[in-house]
């Protein structure tokens, strides 16, 4: 599908110059420090895909377009794809496959702690992203679990902000976008009249009905 190819584009833009890097030893597209560039780029796309995924529900509501929900899973899984690349680049090329070195960093460097937390929270979301899991868990439980995405996005933004040396403009921009998306959800939740059963209230506030769930 077209959207799939578009989502894959950032990955291809990293992989294709790798050929030039391996054959000539230098690829301007990847800068003089390709490992750092790839780590940074995959991290940025993780945050972007997380935020794009979080846009689906507001857009669906504003434009009354339930079909948008069909793309949400793919976008969320692409966020997971890029975070895996981000983690692997760091683990393999920065920590040289060393688990002790990795844990030392996770425990000592708070930006890595929060990054790992975000990654860890995204794993069950990726695993349970299928319709089969929705059935297995029941929609209400599945939906509560997938609210972790808000914390994943928050972890990502904090991870970025704590990493930067002095120019905090980009982390703050992503934080602002996240704040807007979360504020919209809060606003909708406040608007929704209270329902007797807690499960029903939460499902009405922020989620699509089961009929439009992707198969």
């Amino acid at each position, binding site marked *: 599908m077209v959207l799939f190819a578009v989502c894959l584009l950032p990955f291809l833009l990293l992989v294709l110059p790798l050929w030039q890097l391996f054959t000539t030893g*230098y690829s*301007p597209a990847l800068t*003089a*420090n390709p*490992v*750092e560039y790839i780590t940074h780029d995959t991290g940025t796309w993780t945050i972007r895909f997380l935020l794009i995924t979080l846009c689906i529900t507001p857009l669906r509501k504003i434009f009354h377009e339930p079909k948008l929900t069909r793309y949400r899973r793919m976008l969320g899984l692409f966020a997971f794809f890029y975070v895996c690349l981000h983690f692997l680049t760091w683990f393999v090329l920065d920590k040289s496959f060393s688990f002790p070195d990795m844990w030392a960093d996770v425990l000592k460097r708070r930006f890595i702690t929060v990054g790992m937390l975000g990654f860890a929270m995204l794993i069950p979301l990726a695993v349970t992203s299928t319709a089969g899991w929705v059935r297995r868990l029941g929609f209400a439980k599945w939906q509560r679990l997938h609210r972790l995405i808000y914390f994943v996005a928050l972890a990502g933004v904090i991870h970025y902000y704590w990493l930067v040396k002095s120019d905090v403009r980009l982390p703050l921009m992503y934080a602002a976008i996240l704040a807007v998306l979360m504020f919209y959800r809060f606003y909708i939740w406040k608007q929704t009249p209270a329902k007797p059963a807690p499960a029903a209230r939460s499902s009405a506030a922020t989620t699509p009905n089961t009929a439009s769930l992707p198969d």
Partner: protein
Amino acid sequence: MLIRKSPDLRESDITPKQLYVNRRRFLGGSLAFATLAATARAGMKLTDLRKTSYNAGDEKVTPLEAITHYNNFYEFGTDKGDPAENAKDFRTQPWTLKVEGEVAKPKMFDYDDLFKIAPLEDRIYRHRCVEAWSIVVPWAGFPLAALLKQVEPTSKAKYVAFETDYDPKQMPRARWAGISFPYVEGLRLDEAMHPLTFLAVGLYGETLPNQDGAPIRLVVPWKYGFKSAKSLVKIRLVGKQPPTTWNMAASNEYGFYSNVNPKVDHPRWSQAKERRLGELFKRDTLMFNGYTEVAGLYAGMDLRKNY
């Protein structure tokens, strides 16, 4: 008029602004002409460079492309590729370097003087950034000690303060950098007088590209790269430890000494290893970046406290 009519130069070779600004200066010196015609990367060839024994051992010298396109020069933007892009029009002529303070003979140098302060020599140094990447750079210049001896520091001089040029008109991106300008740095007098401490006016045998700190910059190879202030306009001998920009920005992360030390981590990342640009895996960081001859300067000092 010569520039406009010259068959060697096409419209596309020179930006109209440079043409306007430099037309009168062309009459002043061939140096200006060369700078005008050259790209931001290449400079004018430096002649009579003396070879030295500073060759960084067997280490591979980093290609010019990397040295000139991977820079931290926040006056021109905070991305690594920004200085190469945004420092193209930075005017290095006219230039004034003032050497003043606790000295018997303060001096002022203009652009041409910079290349005549002392005999120019080739030195290949390792350069280690605090961000844990490193390169090997073939500088051309002269020891800072040669300049300091000319101005004769008085007995009150205990430190040397350095100031980088700051021109908001030429450096509009500086306001977003998150650090204060002009960029300042400092050394203890004995560090400044050490034979390793270098004032570079060239790279790969040619004058410095703008993004690497043209026309003259400090190089202190046993310290993290941010101590090697670029595009110097002032060198001042002072009695008290001078403020330094990164220490002012985050005093718990960047100290006055900032000696390369694998045993003292940056609060947010380890300094035990570094990425040599061009290599796949990280390599171990060496104490004093391998320049152990400076160890004597810090005898008895706790380098964890004096980071």
